[in-house]
């Protein structure tokens, strides 16, 4: 699957494991990187941590971060799912992960998202995007440069306008 990662279009090395199919997936799969649902992470945490390949955890909009906070060092990717692009909870979750919990891994947005959501998501700490549509990804990269300056601090490192004024 093609995704946008760190402002580049690339093939995702990660494979999503649908919720409830983890046991089969672990038996069948090799050491590749997998993204598992939060419920599966809760149930099979120890086993997943022993696994040689990388593990990512997928959260739905209403899920809290509490279940993964202790393990952030061993979770290489947190995927925040947008059931609807109008549900903005994931933006706050991403900022908390980056700013409060110092999470340095990949934060991936997926679900009902498209080009016009990317810039704000990136400002909140997302650095990878599985867009709803697989077309127009290269064009979507333009979204990051549409607005040059920002008034308020975010999870990104852009200097805010007030700090640049002399």
């Amino acid at each position, binding site marked *: 699957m093609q995704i946008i990662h760190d402002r580049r279009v690339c093939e995702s090395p990660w494979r999503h494991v649908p919720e409830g199919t983890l046991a089969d997936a672990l038996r069948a799969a090799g050491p590749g990187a997998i993204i598992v649902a939060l419920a599966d992470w809760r149930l099979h945490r120890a086993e997943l941590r022993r696994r040689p390949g990388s593990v990512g955890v997928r959260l739905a909009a209403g899920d809290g971060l509490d279940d993964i906070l202790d393990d952030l060092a061993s979770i290489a990717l947190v995927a925040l799912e947008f059931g609807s*692009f*109008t*549900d*903005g*909870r994931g*933006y*706050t*979750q991403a*900022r908390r992960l980056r*700013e*409060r919990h110092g999470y340095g891994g990949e934060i991936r947005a997926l679900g009902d998202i*498209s080009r*016009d959501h990317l*810039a*704000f*998501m990136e*400002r*909140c700490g997302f650095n990878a995007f599985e867009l709803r549509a697989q077309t*127009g990804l290269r064009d979507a990269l333009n979204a990051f440069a*549409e*607005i*040059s*300056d*920002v*008034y*308020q*601090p*975010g999870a990104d490192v852009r200097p*805010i*306008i*007030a*700090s*640049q*004024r002399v």
Partner: protein
Amino acid sequence: MYRYDGYDRRLVEERAEQFADQVRRYRCGEIGEDEFKQLRLRNGLYLQRHAYMLRVAIPYGLLSSHQMRGLAQISRRYDRGYGHFTTRQNIQFNWPELDDVADILRALAKVEMHAIQTSGNVVRNITADHLAGSAGDEIADPRPYCELLRQWSTLHPEFSWLPRKFKIAISGAASDRAAIQFHDIGLQLLEDGDGRLGFKVWVGGGMGRMPVIAKVLREFLPREHLLSYLESILRVYNLQGRRDNIHRARIKILVNSLGIQRFRELVEAEWQQIQPSTLVVDDAEFRRMHDYFAPAQYQHGKSTEAFDKQFANNPLFADWFRHNTREHKICGYSIVTVSLKTPGVAPGDISAEQMDALADLADRFSFGEIRASHDQNLVLADVPVADLPELWKSLAKMQLATANVGTLNDMICCPGLDFCSLANAGTLDVATAINEKFEQLDYLYDLGEVQLKMSGCMNACGHHHVGHIGILGVDKRGEEWYQFTLGGSAGNAPALGERLGAAIAKNRVAEAVGDLLEVYLARRDEGEQFVETVRRIGISPFKERVYANHSRSARLRESLAACA
């Protein structure tokens, strides 16, 4: 007033180009209908009953003459030569073409304006006391803080998809003229015991279908923490506000369901986590903002001979002076309300010619600035008393000197069924009927202050809940009916109006208003205002009169119909 620098300018210019590209992608099918709707709303563009409507932000209601001319030009070039001032101190254009909107945004950017976040589930335009900087009862000027909030909230990446819209108002005066207790967040500037400036913070107020008076969230917030504290409130709301039901999604519902104590704990806990951050505003930034709103260069010692003569000899001028001006903090100056409630014109409407004329008058008489008030009038806030006769003459020529401010005919009114696709009933024709019935100024003056506020649906854009007389349009099996409330008020002692009784048919609304006023005139004590009489005697006498008269006139009409 605030002036854009290169950063502010580039941001609004780029925003216009971004929207131009979104329209292009929508036109060629790359963006679907639902998604485009959300994108255009974030630039203030609604799809109304007949056409698109563009709502332009007027931050805290403050306009320069140059900006007013820009609006006039836009209304001529892209609309039908007029604009409509709203209850949130914004202006709306009712007839733009979609393919012109990016050009309108470009034209707005040229005069340091935009339509960013005038709609959508985001932080909306920050509103404030329309007399800021000029009223005598001011503790501190709210506008520097409004501008800080405008910048902080503009394109805020985290709060662009809130559960519902979010409105913030600030008052810096002893008397609240910004209805702060009917906002999602209301801020009252004050000094603590040590002379430090800060805010009393209210949360969870609002009108709409479930009107709620806000609750005190914090008695004193030092001003340097304004942004971080508001960010904490928004964050708690963004995570916990309801998203399953649009009618339960405002922050007032969250505050009520958690209880103010629990809500406060959540906000304070969040705040502790983000407090020492770049959101703290330092003194240098406050000074920079304050400098934009430095007091005008007031002149003293102008002769008021012309004023005295006009006032003594010209009763029309004297009426206008009594009703449409108020005391200024500086002796020798006056605050002038420009009534946009001329009978026969929709409340809040203004023509391009009037906009241009007013811009010229602002330049001549009021330091080139104009304010929009939440009761849909305009204000020239710094006029020398000596110049009032000249100003009055010029305003009168432009039909902008109707001496009805504060009277029954100075009503607040949403656009209603004529324009709005949410409305259940017309408001403009009802307003006209009321205007026509009560056209005698002497009668209106005798009534004193009566705030009539009318909404065409329960979304309450016309603030009917806080009208001394509130009128709400409802749909009954395809017919327009009107629900009355009595005794509401905004301000320092906020109250929600009490429902009078069953809804009233459209052709009887003006008559019912007449009944209410007759009860007041018969029952008022010396010097008592309408709303005070309502509070003293209760709504029963009003109710009895309105419904007795109505059943009688209904019977009469029926018997006449039977004869014919």
